[in-house]
Every structure is written in structure tokens, then in C-alpha cells.
């Protein structure tokens, strides 16, 4: 190969990384193998939380990370992690992510890390799975110990829940033993962290929000690409995302039967309940705008743009 790029990923190969696999294939095909993208799993090149650091000094050319791992490294991206933005499906999330990536303030934010946003890894909405009494209404979360980090934790706190520190890999044991009563994850994480095996219930339509995990590339490496390689990379993004969405749909092929087989109660809250719950998000949005405006970011503009794009 004329050009070899290394990609820093954590964990095993899974639905969450399938767009990068596809991207590497597409790029190789388009350049007759002259542009090779090599995936390194398991944090072999960097811990997930230091992927932006590695990108900044060019240890590898491409990496994945989640905005919530280090909100202050990437404040503009956290707008997509605010609760109750109203993202209904992964397609919408792709759309709003791309719009956000085009915004100059966001490009400047990531530019500090010498990083250019290539594509999102859209994640479905978080929902809570828990053990014990099935919550019939939002008020039942009052006093419940939940594993919910960052913004989601704040939202749950607003309805009286008690956010409790538990690492993701310890969640299964923590729920089983009652250390926490419920945990918020996307469905695939409920599966991989085995929460579903101990859960009695799952909030089917709470949909409070999700995390945002982009793929970025090193700006210098990108600019140094010959024009045809650059074109091949850019043109591979859409097929990669299409493949990702297909793969992700299959996660749900496992998810629904899993819930059925294990007899997990699927809780659906009424529209009034959800409206009351989402009203708690208002102050959190305002606080975000106030904080990021104080940091000199066009926060209100970003939030309005995100909301408008989602509504379109």
C-alpha cells in the first residue's frame, strides 16, 4: 500500500465499529488497495479516553470516541447528548450529526485536537433496565439508585432518582445484588453487559437521550492524502453508514426476542407522563447554553440548529 492509516478502537469488533470495517473495505476497493486502513481493536493504540490526544499528535490517523467520555475536550459535540432532543431513529441522528459537523464552531472545537469529524456512530436512545418493582409512572423513580452518568444522571436526579457510581462492567453484579436498581444504556449495551439477564423491566419509550460517538481523522494526515485517495475516503462514508445502519437493525433482531424470552416487562409511559418528564430537560438545556456561552461558544445557535434539523 502507498498509504497506510491506523485506526484506534476500543473493545472487540461489534455493530458499533462496523462502519469503520466497511470504510476500510470501500477505500481499499476504490484505490486498488493502495490506501490501506488498518483497524486496531482492544485499545491497542490508545485508551478510548485518550484517542483525541493520540489524534492531536498524529500517533494514528483515525479514531473513535464518545463525546461524554470527556465533555470538556469537545464541548460543542455534547449538544447532541442533551436529553429529550426528540431524535426518533438512527437516520435522524445521522442527519443531525452531519449538520453539526458542518458548523464552523464545531470544526474549530475539534480543530484544537487537530481532528476532523468524518462520520458519526449513531447510537439508539438510552433506556433503563432494572430489577424489582416495575415503575408504573415516572414518580416511581423517586429514591431509586440508578447507574446514569453525566447529563442523563442529572435528568434522573431531577425526578428524584439517586445516580450511583458503577463501572459498566460491574453493572450486572450491581443490579443483581441491589447495589443499584436500574441502569441506563442503549439496548446493545444492555445485551453486552448482560443487564438484560437480571432485569425484570425495561423502559420501552422513555427515550431520554443518547451519547454521541464520532469517527475523527487527523487533519494533517487527511490534507496530505493525494486527491484521489481523499475522494475515495469521502465517497466511502455514506456506504459505510448505510452498512452500519443495516448491522444495527440486526441488534434489534436479537433484542426483542431476548426481552420476550426472559419475560422482561416492557414499560410504556403515557404521553402525559413523558411530557412531564421531558419538561425536566428544559432547565438542563438552558444550563448547557449558559455554560457553553460563557466559554465563548455560540451555544444557543448550535442548539437551535440541532432542534431545527431534527424537526425537518
Amino acid at each position, binding site marked *: 500500500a502507498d498509504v497506510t492509516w491506523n485506526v484506534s478502537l476500543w473493545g472487540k469488533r461489534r455493530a458499533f465499529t462496523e462502519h469503520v470495517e466497511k470504510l476500510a473495505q470501500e477505500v481499499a476497493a476504490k484505490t486498488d488497495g493502495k490506501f490501506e486502513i488498518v483497524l486496531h481493536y482492544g485499545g491497542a493504540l490508545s485508551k478510548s479516553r485518550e484517542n483525541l490526544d493520540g489524534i492531536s499528535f498524529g500517533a494514528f490517523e483515525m479514531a473513535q470516541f464518545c463525546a461524554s467520555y470527556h465533555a470538556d475536550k469537545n464541548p460543542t459535540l455534547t449538544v447532541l447528548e442533551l436529553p429529550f432532543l426528540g431524535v426518533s431513529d438512527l437516520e435522524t441522528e445521522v442527519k443531525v450529526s452531519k449538520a453539526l459537523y458542518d458548523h464552523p464552531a464545531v470544526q474549530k472545537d475539534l480543530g484544537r485536537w487537530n481532528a476532523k469529524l468524518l462520520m458519526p456512530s449513531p447510537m439508539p436512545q438510552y433506556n433503563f433496565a432494572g430489577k424489582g418493582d416495575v415503575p408504573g409512572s415516572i414518580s416511581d423513580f423517586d*429514591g431509586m439508585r440508578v447507574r446514569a452518568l453525566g447529563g442523563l444522571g442529572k435528568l434522573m436526579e431531577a425526578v428524584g432518582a*439517586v445516580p450511583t*457510581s458503577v463501572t459498566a462492567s460491574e453493572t450486572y453484579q450491581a443490579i443483581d445484588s441491589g447495589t443499584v436498581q436500574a441502569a441506563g444504556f442503549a439496548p446493545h449495551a444492555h445485551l453486552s453487559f448482560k443487564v438484560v439477564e437480571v432485569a425484570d423491566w425495561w423502559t420501552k419509550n422513555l427515550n431520554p437521550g443518547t451519547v454521541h460517538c464520532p469517527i475523527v481523522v487527523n487533519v494533517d494526515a487527511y490534507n496530505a492524502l493525494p486527491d484521489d485517495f481523499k475522494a475515495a475516503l469521502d465517497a466511502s462514508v455514506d456506504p459505510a453508514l448505510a452498512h452500519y445502519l443495516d448491522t444495527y437493525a440486526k441488534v434489534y433482531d436479537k433484542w426483542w426476542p431476548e426481552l420476550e424470552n426472559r419475560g422482561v416487562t416492557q414499560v410504556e409511559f403515557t404521553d402525559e407522563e413523558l411530557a412531564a418528564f421531558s419538561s425536566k430537560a428544559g432547565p438542563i438545556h438552558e444550563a448547557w447554553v449558559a455554560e457553553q456561552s460563557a466559554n465563548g461558544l455560540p451555544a444557543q445557535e448550535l442548539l437551535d440548529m440541532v432542534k431545527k434539523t431534527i424537526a425537518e
Partner: protein
Amino acid sequence: MMTIDPGGRSDQERPVTYIRFDGWLARVENAFNMFAAFSILALMLLAVAQVVGRVFNTPVPGFIDITEQAMAIFAFAGVAYCQRVGGHIRMEIVLGNLSGRTLYICELIGVILIAFTVALLIWGSWYHFERAWNIGDSTMDIRLPTWPSKLVIPVALSLLFLRLLMQIYGYARLIADPRRTPIAVPVIEGVEEHAKHEIEEAFGEDTKEGGSK
């Protein structure tokens, strides 16, 4: 500070400045190690508070974030102290069979190599701190800034670097004259002496009155 020369030499022969600097450095190292020790005690109490608090539905907010950031203290603060007392493990099958100038030359090369590595790591870990300081970085749950704990690394490694410089000088003066009494360098002990030290550590103060010697 040492006032009587263990080798029984006159004042002119003793590296006075060196001994004084060594004593000063040792105090800083002891303080750093004690700081690490207290951070361990604090971690213990915080974790007990977390368990008890959880029972009453008031867990410590961001317990994992706090613990992780505090870990930099006990993972690094004692690193120079540990080097001084020869606590970082190594294999002694070759060194244990050397003596005199040959031994000190090997020791010197080893310490120079460590000092080189540590110098570069101070530089590199300073960059790591600088990014968090200049651009921003925070923990996942309660968004603690990470720069203070990242700063611990270059600071602790700098202290280690000073200790290594002392040891370089310490071995250099022994190479110049192997009959000198070693000062401020760890001395290799055979397995019997090692065992003796382990025993002293296990029994603490009462070794002297016990029947072990």
C-alpha cells in the same frame, strides 16, 4: 544528617555537599511517600463512606471519578522514595555475582539508562498535562478537571530524576575508588540478607529483642 563518617575518613575525603543534598532530597521523598500513604487511607475512608452511604441512598457523587483522579497520587508520589530504597524489582542473578568496579560500572549504566527514560517521560507526560490544561479535559460523570492528576506525573518523575542524578554521582565516585563506602546508593543483598530484611519488616521493631538474630 550524617555527622560521623561510616568509613572513618577525615572530613576532606567526604562528599559533604553530596551528603547534605542527599539528606534534603530524602526528606522531600519521604514527604511525598507519606502523601501517597495518606491518599490510600483517604481512599479507604471514602470507599467505606460510599458503601455506608449507599445503604442510606446517599452514595458519594462521582465516587469512581474521584477515586480515579486521586489514584495518580499513590501511583506516583512515592516513585522516587521507592528508587532510593531499591524497592523497584529487578533480577540480580548477574549483578549478584559481580563486585567492585565492574559491579559499579554495571549499576551506573543501568541508572543512566533509567535517567534517560525518565527524562523523556517527564517531557512526554508534561505534554499530556499541557493538553488537558490548555484545551480542556474532564471526567465522565461529574466532570472533574483531569489536569491536576496529570500534573502529578511530571512532578513525581522529576523528583525521581533528581534521585537518579544522585545515584549516578554515587556510583561514579565508587568507580573512581571502589574502596569508598557506598553513600546514597542501594546495596545489593544476597538471598539470606534479603530474607533477613523481610523478617525485620514482618516483625517491625521487636526484631531486636526476639530470637531471630
